[in-house]
């Protein structure tokens, strides 16, 4: 396929079906809109093209300026090329990979002391305020693309909505992460305007206290001009561990090498749709690629890399007595196979503790749909794994007193 420029390759991303084995949802057809397959690796390539590329002939200033510490900056930096300079003013860039990439792309990076990814209007040193001041002072030098307020941002995503509807006319639900809100607003509006039975629009936020690169919590959305709570049929929340678990699930089981916000959305939609009785056709946005987030995974899921787990950050393990084991729980006898053969816990499966720990480092083996009760000899050795599972949002328990206190073994 022949293109006149890289910008022309933005959009028309594939809609990929996610297998039932991966999403494990009854009555659901699930599709990922592969925005990560845009040329610079994210959904933001669309707004980069719309806000800059399509207007570039009319921009008289030398420098494009934006507040972005991630994908928007990357797209703009790549698209500006030799035609314009690109400058990003942002709070501290937390993903070192992106910072290095922007430097390779010859970006002028101005980092402010704040740590929040989202501009805070109450702080005069917030990136948007700084940009506005610079543009005001040097209007002939800077052209502010202004992703937080530029209507071309949601407008760019209306095209995405059009592509989705064309590929899946029967769509019933749409899920996406809320960042600038441009993606959900643009796609959601298009779908509502052009589909007779309007699909449910789901926005996914990051829970306060959690950190997901590119994600926002409710308090951070006040600066975003496009956000309107009432626009969404449902707003969901997820944690750092949700994001990582969802991301790893898609990467390891479906080969979709996505980033954590995609994982956050995937995890949220699985929670939302787990008891769906009516047949649904669901689309979610796979918004960017995994590579920039290796460092993030090293920090928040060190076990993947065989690094020492920061135990202090793990939740306290929870225990359950034999009489109070949830009826639908998966029982896992974690003792060595010899012990299991000798006196396995009734109705349990046997996964020796060391194997279980290895498995959990490599993959997700339990679903959040069912509680898990871990059983060891004395009710002590499994506590650490229970904590690990709890951190992954698995409803896990330690059997109090283990098999030695059991009346059944």
């Amino acid at each position, binding site marked *: 396929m022949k293109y006149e420029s890289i910008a022309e390759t933005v959009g028309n991303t594939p809609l990929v079906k996610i297998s039932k084995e991966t999403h494990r949802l009854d009555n659901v057809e699930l599709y990922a809109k592969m925005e990560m397959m845009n040329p610079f690796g994210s959904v933001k390539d669309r707004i980069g093209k719309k806000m800059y590329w399509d207007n570039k002939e009319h921009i008289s200033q030398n420098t494009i300026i934006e507040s972005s510490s991630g994908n928007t900056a990357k797209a703009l930096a790549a698209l500006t090329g030799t035609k314009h300079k690109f400058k990003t003013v942002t709070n501290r860039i937390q993903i070192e990979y992106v910072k290095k990439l922007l430097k390779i792309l010859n970006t002028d990076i101005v980092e402010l002391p704040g740590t929040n990814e989202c501009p805070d209007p109450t702080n005069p040193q917030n990136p948007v305020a700084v940009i506005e001041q610079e543009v005001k002072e040097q209007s002939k030098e800077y052209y502010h693309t202004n992703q937080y307020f530029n209507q071309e941002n949601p407008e760019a995503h209306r095209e995405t909505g059009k592509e989705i509807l064309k590929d899946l006319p029967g769509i019933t639900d749409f899920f996406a992460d809320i960042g600038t809100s441009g993606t959900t607003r643009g796609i959601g509006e298009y779908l509502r305007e052009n589909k007779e039975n309007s699909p449910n629009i789901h926005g996914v936020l990051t829970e306060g206290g959690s950190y997901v690169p590119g994600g926002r919590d409710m308090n951070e959305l006040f600066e975003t001009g496009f956000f309107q709570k009432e626009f969404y049929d449902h707003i969901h929340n997820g944690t750092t561990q949700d994001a990582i678990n969802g991301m790893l699930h898609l990467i390891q089981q479906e080969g979709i090498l996505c980033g954590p916000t995609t994982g956050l959305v995937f995890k949220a939609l699985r929670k939302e749709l787990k008891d769906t009785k009516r047949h649904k056709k669901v689309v979610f946005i796979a918004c960017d690629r995994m590579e920039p987030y290796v460092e993030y995974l090293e920090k928040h899921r060190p076990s993947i890399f065989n690094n020492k787990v920061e135990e202090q950050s793990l939740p306290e393990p929870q225990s359950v007595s034999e009489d109070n084991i949830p009826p639908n729980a998966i029982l896992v006898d974690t*003792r060595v196979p*010899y012990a299991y*053969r*000798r006196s396995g816990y009734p109705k349990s499966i046997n996964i*020796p503790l060391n194997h279980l720990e290895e498995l959990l480092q490599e993959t997700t083996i339990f679903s959040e749909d069912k509680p898990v009760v871990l059983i*060891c*000899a004395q009710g002590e*050795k499994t506590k650490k794994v229970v904590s690990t599972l709890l951190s992954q949002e698995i409803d896990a328990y330690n059997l109090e007193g283990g098999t030695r206190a059991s009346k059944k073994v």
Partner: protein
Amino acid sequence: MKIRAEVPSNIQSYVDTLTSSEIDYPTRVYFPEVLRRNIQFVEDLPITVYLAHKATKTQEFLTIAKEQSIGIDVASEQELENALRTGIDPKKIEATGPKNKAFIKKVVEKDILISVDSLYELQTIKEMNVPTRVLIRIANPSDKEIFFSKTKFGIQKKHITTVKQIVDGTKIDVQGFHYHGDGISASMRGQITKFFLDQIETYFPKANKINLGGGFSEKRLRNPQNWHKLIQNLIEKKKEGKLTTWGTKPYGIQTGKNNQVVGSDQALLPSKSKTFREQLLQILTQQIYSSTAVRDILEDTNIELLVEPGHALLYNTGIAIFPVSHTKKIQRGNLVVVNGNTFMISKQMREPYADPELLTTNKEQKEYEAFIGGLLCRDDDIFMSRQITLNKKPQTGDLLVFYNQGSYESYQEGTPQSHPLPETKIIQ
């Protein structure tokens, strides 16, 4: 070359204060605190320790065992009675070794755990028709042909099915298996543990004990690596025709083909450098069933691992002190004659490999090479199989202190394991 003993500081302090005027007769000194420490050193491990009574006749040591709540392994009626008199809980006593009917009757009556040494013992217990807890002692648990599979002890593994047939439907509760092999490696003990686990799973699924016996080596020397140098040195001297050793095969050194002098593996025993605790830890970390540590199996199954150390648990609990009678010249060199004899040290079980320490009043700084002999009218009454180098020439009344003499020290003074003396009859 000097071979130093490893000496606990409290014992060294005691020896440092000794003067020759205090002791004029062979004397053994015991340090119960060292036994207490030896027990406490391994009490955190998931292994049940039974002190082998046969390794000591010192009542204070049994009292320490009771105080520390470890078990006692008895090998005779007399040892059993002594343990009970000491107040040891019968539940913490195990009877091992070959047993006659009287001993079997007594241990069954007292509800003592019995390590059954023969099918005869098992049949005898069966006939008593009393609830009895037993371990089955197996002679040859390893597939490998090892020295101790030729032991006189235990039941052949091919007879385990016979054991099963004898005990089924009786009041005999087979609680597990037992094996003892002197000096066997941790790896071998791991393999034996696996063999016993297999037998438990196959024949006695409710059994919950595995007894790996005793025979643990000790770290006898301060610098065990020096022992190799010593043996090489002795071999070289023997090649040169110098008479620096005593006996036909001292430390396994012997004359081989073409009259060449060689050493044997036995010569290396004193070079062992692992402590009792380290040896137990080695057993616990042995990987069996592909990749499962023995320790994990014990924890997860509630199967109890038993050991019955003698030497290893009584390590460094005593010293033996001998006054010097005189010195003399012999064809091999010098001889220090002490007031005492070799039946008064544990040489009959194991030579005191480390050099004794000389406490002397001699002011002259000159080393003195000598053999050490006793007062018995026997040519083999020699304390050590080699000539040793003393710092000074001993004088009458000086003291020689032998370390690590807390176990099997009086083996030859009475009857071993307290068995009664034979009756004497004179036929005219």
